[in-house]
């Protein structure tokens, strides 16, 4: 399949959005849903074709001397800032872009199909706004696809904004619920704040490079400048501002932009709240695709980040801390979607850290004669995580749809009622916990190897977080499906959901089992050359052992109803509460936004405007008014006073004349 078919991959979702948004609202609900699924199916088939052609074909310049090169399919000008600085809207395929096409389309198709069942009530009637829902899903898919095939940094920024808006619209899908409105607003504003940094980063970088393109057509792109010591990029490395090079500032700001989308600490606060959206949306946007945009961004600029060790160190520390922080919170959450959200944050932090541990002292670390293992591991984990996390979220959706609650104390003992969902969820848990041969084991193992290579401390830290992951996932699993007998709260007993919802679970579960055998090391590397990896038995065995300990602990505490969890929570009540309240980050933000910014800045400015600035102009008017009232008395209309003033004036003039003549 020619690579130019990528255009259709991008265009179909856009057309679907326009069609469903403008025409679809008037159509039958089911028809629009089926139309959405069909559109997505075609897109997925095309995307698979393109990705396979890219990875295994040789015809269009993608393989040069055994190294995979980026292929620019088309790249027209969109907005010319100046003769040199032009924003282009193009399509570029390279290993990570092709991989992302597969990830996005797979998950999106599953979600489209699943939503046919999920967005209906128990009588099979579609919910209000069904067409709008499918239109927004198409919009999101379009934006996300546009983001990954971007040929330049500015295009990524544009689609960053687009996915942000799609996410806003979908989180706030139930727009009559105050929680949903609040969550959507919060998500948009936090990510917008991060995008501001991204924008400033782009401004700084482009000031030196004079181009946004990664690989230019006629002029050198950013990546082309890397080897050229005379290039303007080198100047950015030497120009300093407040002690750091311009390059370091730019790359750190760009990372902050990515951190906002990828929910890194302390910009993570929007993601747990975003769970107010419909569950399939959480699976698509807030677990598998949009939230990895930040990781993707750093991976995109990876060769630049390698040059600036300071920026890499920041990513490393932020990533490692976030991974632990989110895992700790996930251990105590009672809302299953929130727990999964924190698990997502923790896993994305794994990917970030993995990118950052690839280099030390401005050089890539060598492992078994290859370079950039962390990069490969990160992208591989991105791929496998998207599959099993989407699976977990869709299972959670099925459960929520069955019991009408997010809280796990309304669930318990569901294994008997929903066997398929239970098994699918178990597969997802095994995958994320890193038990071989499930997908997560292979990718997480590579990350741990890369981390140990960077330093023993990093490796131990990440292993510990991996153990926590196994614990909290199985805690959720046992609490939902076992613990005690299910108490039926609604009029009908919970059961497995219709085939539209079950089929995606089965497909994703299958992928979660086999995805680990994808030869990622041959396909997705930072320079396109295959990387030779081998299983590091020490790391592999120890990580499986740690995962088993985590699972065993969860089994002991949560398989059968017992008082152990309660006793443990009581023994360190303060810590438990703090973790449950997410270490009070939301309260802190609440304080800053409401008390400091709203009460402390906005209100005084608005008061100042009305009282001082406006007051000044009103005072001018008042003074004029008063003066004219004063002067008006001169024009009284009484002849006597006119004669009086006339006489005084005449005498004065006469006096002055006399004085002049006499002196």
């Amino acid at each position, binding site marked *: 399949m020619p690579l130019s078919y990528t255009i259709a991959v991008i265009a179909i979702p856009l057309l679907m959005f326009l069609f469903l948004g403008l025409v679809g609202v008037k159509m039958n609900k089911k028809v629009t849903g089926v139309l959405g699924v069909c559109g997505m199916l075609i897109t997925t088939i095309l995307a698979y074709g393109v990705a396979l052609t890219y990875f295994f074909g040789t015809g269009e310049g993608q393989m040069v001397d055994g190294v995979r090169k980026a292929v620019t399919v088309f790249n027209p000008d969109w*907005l010319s800032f100046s003769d040199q600085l032009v924003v282009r809207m193009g399509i570029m395929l390279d290993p990570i872009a092709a991989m992302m096409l597969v990830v996005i389309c797979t998950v999106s198709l599953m979600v489209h199909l699943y939503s046919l069942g999920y967005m209906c009530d128990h009588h099979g009637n579609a919910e209000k706004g069904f067409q709008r829902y499918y239109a927004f899903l198409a919009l999101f898919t379009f934006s996300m696809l546009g983001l990954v095939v971007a040929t330049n940094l500015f295009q990524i920024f544009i689609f960053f904004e*687009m996915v942000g808006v799609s996410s806003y619209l979908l989180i706030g899908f139930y727009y*009559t619920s105050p929680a949903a409105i609040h969550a959507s607003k919060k998500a948009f504003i936090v990510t917008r704040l991060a995008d501001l940094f991204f924008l400033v980063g782009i401004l700084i970088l482009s000031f030196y490079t004079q181009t946004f393109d990664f690989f230019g057509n006629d002029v050198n792109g950013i990546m082309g400048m890397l080897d050229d010591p005379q290039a303007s990029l080198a100047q950015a490395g030497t120009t300093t501002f407040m002690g750091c090079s311009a390059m370091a500032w730019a790359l750190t700001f760009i990372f902050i932009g990515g951190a906002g989308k990828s929910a890194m600490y302390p910009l993570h606060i929007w993601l747990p709240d975003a769970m107010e959206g419909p569950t399939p949306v959480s699976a698509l946007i807030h677990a598998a695709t949009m939230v990895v945009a930040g990781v993707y961004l750093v991976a995109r600029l990876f060769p630049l980040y390698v040059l600036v060790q300071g920026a890499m160190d920041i990513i490393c520390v932020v990533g490692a801390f976030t991974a632990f922080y989110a895992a700790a919170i996930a251990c105590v959450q009672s809302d299953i979607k929130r727990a999964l959200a924190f698990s997502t944050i923790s896993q994305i932090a794994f990917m970030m850290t993995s990118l950052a541990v690839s280099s030390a002292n401005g050089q890539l670390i060598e492992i078994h004669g290859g370079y950039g293992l962390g990069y490969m591991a990160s992208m591989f984990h991105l791929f496998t995580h998207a599959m099993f996390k989407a699976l977990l979220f869709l299972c959670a959706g099925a459960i929520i749809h069955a019991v009408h609650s997010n809280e796990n104390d309304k669930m318990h003992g569901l294994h008997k009622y929903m066997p398929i969902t239970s098994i699918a969820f178990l597969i997802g848990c095994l995958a994320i916990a890193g038990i071989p041969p499930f997908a997560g084991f292979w990718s997480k193992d590579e990350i741990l190897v890369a981390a140990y290579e960077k330093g023993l401390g990093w490796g131990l830290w990440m292993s510990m977080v991996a153990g926590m992951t196994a614990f909290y996932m199985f805690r959720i699993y046992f609490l939902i499906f076992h613990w005690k007998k299910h108490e039926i709260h609604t009029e009908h007993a919970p059961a497995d959901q219709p085939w539209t919802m079950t089929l995606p679970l089965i497909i994703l579960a299958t992928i979660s089992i086999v995805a680990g055998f994808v030869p990622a090391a041959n396909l997705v590397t930072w320079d396109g050359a295959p990387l030779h990896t081998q299983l590091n038995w020490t790391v592999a065995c120890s990580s499986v052992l740690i995962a088993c300990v985590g699972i065993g602990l969860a089994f002991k505490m949560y398989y059968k109803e017992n008082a152990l969890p309660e006793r443990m929570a009581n023994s360190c009540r303060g810590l438990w509460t703090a973790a449950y309240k997410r270490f009070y980050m939301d309260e802190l933000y609440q304080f800053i936004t409401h008390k400091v910014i709203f009460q402390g800045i906005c209100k005084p400015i*608005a008061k100042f*405007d009305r009282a001082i600035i406006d007051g000044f102009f009103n005072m001018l*008017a008042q003074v004029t008014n008063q003066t004219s009232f004063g002067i008006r008395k001169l024009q009284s209309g009484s002849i006597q006073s006119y004669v009086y003033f006339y006489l005084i004036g005449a005498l004065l003039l006469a006096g002055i004349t006399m004085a002049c003549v006499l002196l």
Partner: protein
Amino acid sequence: MEIFNNILIYFVIVPLLTLLGLALCSNKGIGAIRAVAVAGATVLVALAGYLVYLFLQARGAGDTSEMILRSEVMWYAPLNVKLALGVDGVSVVMILLSAFIVFAGVFASWKMNPLPKQFFLWFYLLSTGVFGFFISIDLFTMFMFYEVALIPMYLLIGVWGSGNKNYSAMKLTLMLMGGSAFLMLGIIGIYFHSSADGNWTMNILEIAQNDAIPHQWQMWLFPLTFIGFGVLGAMFPFHTWSPDGHASAPTAVSMLHAGVLMKLGGYGCFRIAIYLMPFAAQQLGWIFLTLTGISIVYGAFSACVQTDLKYINAYSSVSHCGMVLFAILMFNTTAMTGAVLQMLSHGLMTALFFALIGMIYGRTHTRDIRDMGGMMQIMPYLGVGYVIAGLASLGLPGLSGFVAEMTIFVGSYMHSDVFHRVLTIAATCSIVITAVYILRVVGKLLFGEVQNEHHRELTDASWEERLSTATLILAVAIIGCFPNFFVNIISDSFLPIVGALENAARAAGMM
């Protein structure tokens, strides 16, 4: 006469003919009044479209002169005042914008009551002034048309306005007249230094050619003219007429005022203040740059706490128009092109906002967001329109606001001076604050449960309201999706101005 062969003059003649037609209508015949008003607006849009075509054709044929379609008639020989016409890319797009807004404005004031005939009379007089301003290249006629555009405002707000309308109308008129006073002083000053040999002229191109204004005079004349136009461009601290004025004005007047009239300010700033006094612009630019930088952030913060829909948009206009002047003062083609894009974008989306607010107010009789909620369930068409306007305002790619703001930011950051770059970064913060106030109002007004049960009986948009908003939404989307079309028209127009600025800098030894 030869001047009637020039298409530009018809931009003044058509509104005047519409005025005449309206005057002949009877007071009762609302159908006839509407027909005449719509006919006038449609002809204007068609003319504007044709003008764009002519412009592209001329440029395509290799005509690189600064202004095209030039012609002039002597008006008052002793002072050498002429009616001189000519347009460059910027004027062309401004004329297109004005025509669009007049068109949408007519439909937005479809049910104007009372005195519809008189309303449209003043409305078209205002349009005459606006179009006249954009086609003139003679200081005298420009100033005259400028005043023609300002005066009807007083009556339009005073008679057809709402709320504290007398106060607002008076305040707006007095402050803008204050600006005009500065401006007139400036223009007279320019006139008396317009040439070295005593052949004084009012023609902008000739004055720029002569480049005869002494530097010490420029230092006086630049602030006078810049502030004169800056008042209309809502520059801090001369912006306070804007919130009150907009709040009291009827819908179409708010649209025309924010959409077009405020653009006269920005247009005048670079066409007269900067182009004719480049030396002083280089010397004093940083003062005004700081003021406009304050405008951007200050307006946005102020908008965050307002509860009246129109006040929110008025303060948001302060912020967005601040960005226009900010970009103009960066003195490079990219930023200045961004300024014109921002004028277009702000004009269209603010007109859209005010149209929607007017339609909502016409139904609920309140503009206080605390009394409203859940409007999306009641009037989905207007609700979706409001969300699109909001997204355009906070800079969603694909709509006009993003293109304009990004061109401004990138252009401003190209400046070689660190102070300018730091100020640019400060100005970019407004994109977050804008998101805050837009989402706040969208959340309160449109989403959530219906606050007032009486609102449930309200109806969605009627056909003329749909037409009015759809026109504007389409225009916003076209600019957002195909920005290069507009950039190509606009950017070359700034070459003479940037050239003059560079010469001045070189002469002063700054470069």
